[in-house]
């Protein structure tokens, strides 16, 4: 009898985006250059997701743009995992990306990778795998419910290094003036 693999529902996670699901058929994909993707899940609740971020230029400490944007990019993924039934103490993460691109004057990937590792340490979230830094881009596939992840190099590294896109402007609460 032939074994037929269950069909995947493939969803791409672009830069500045994140997605959380409890659907075991969902496969999250992304292409990373110097960007980093955090793949996060709660193995007991069976929920997980991925984000994909590139820090703006600046220091990763203090209250600079890099730290502000990075902390926010991580928080929205963590919060959505918790809203979907995850528990903070059970969360485990795989980190991918932060590659050094061939034509880069400054190693932006290193800064992104350093930030992501520090975030996991600060938050006490288990860092259970992944692949950070190195040279060039990579394509990531992540099944957020099972936690399985696959990576392969991307030949056209430039395709994986989009110019930094400013995070979308935060829309204020409409015309609601409080003070």
């Amino acid at each position, binding site marked *: 009898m032939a074994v037929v693999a269950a069909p995947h529902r493939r969803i791409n996670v672009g830069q500045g985006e994140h997605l959380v699901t409890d659907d075991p058929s969902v496969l999250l994909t992304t292409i990373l250059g110097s960007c980093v993707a955090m793949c996060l899940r709660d193995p007991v609740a069976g929920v997980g997701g991925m984000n994909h971020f590139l820090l703006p230029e600046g220091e990763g400490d203090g*209250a600079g743009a890099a730290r502000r944007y990075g*902390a926010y990019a991580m928080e929205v993924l*963590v919060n959505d995992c918790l809203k979907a039934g995850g528990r903070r103490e059970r969360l485990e993460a795989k980190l991918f990306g932060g590659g050094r691109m061939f034509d880069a004057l400054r190693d932006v990937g290193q800064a992104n990778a350093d930030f992501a590792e520090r975030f996991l340490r600060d*938050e006490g979230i288990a860092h259970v795998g992944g692949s950070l830094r190195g040279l060039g881009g990579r394509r990531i596939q992540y099944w957020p419910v099972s936690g399985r992840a696959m990576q392969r190099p991307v030949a056209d590294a430039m395709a994986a290094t989009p110019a930094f896109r400013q995070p979308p402007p935060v829309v204020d*609460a409409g015309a609601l003036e409080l003070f």
Partner: protein
Amino acid sequence: MPAASAIHTLIVDDQQSMRSLIRTSLQQIGFREFREAADGEAGLREMIGRPAHLVISDFNMPKLDGLGLLRAVRAHPPTAGAAFIMLTGRADRELVQRAVQFGVNNYLVKPFTVAQLKDKLEGVFGPLA
């Protein structure tokens, strides 16, 4: 003109990196006195144990969320007069309206800049020295 350094602040957020970021931002504005709590329940215990002048609280938190903390702080006479600024991950009109109903002093959407935080604080305390 109130001195920022004299304002005792309680920072409530379930993410350590966000608490640290808020603390650093407040230090840049001139604040010096901080305490921190990782969820609404712990924040309420801190406030009841020793009321702060200002609470800066996330909305999404386990155990007791920011709205629950706000209601509890307002319901407890020794803490009812504290200034309360709510942090939200998105501009949510309904959430802001409920927070106003429960007596929030101001709100701030993440990710925020130090200048935006200062504007919101001065909206509550007036110009800060």
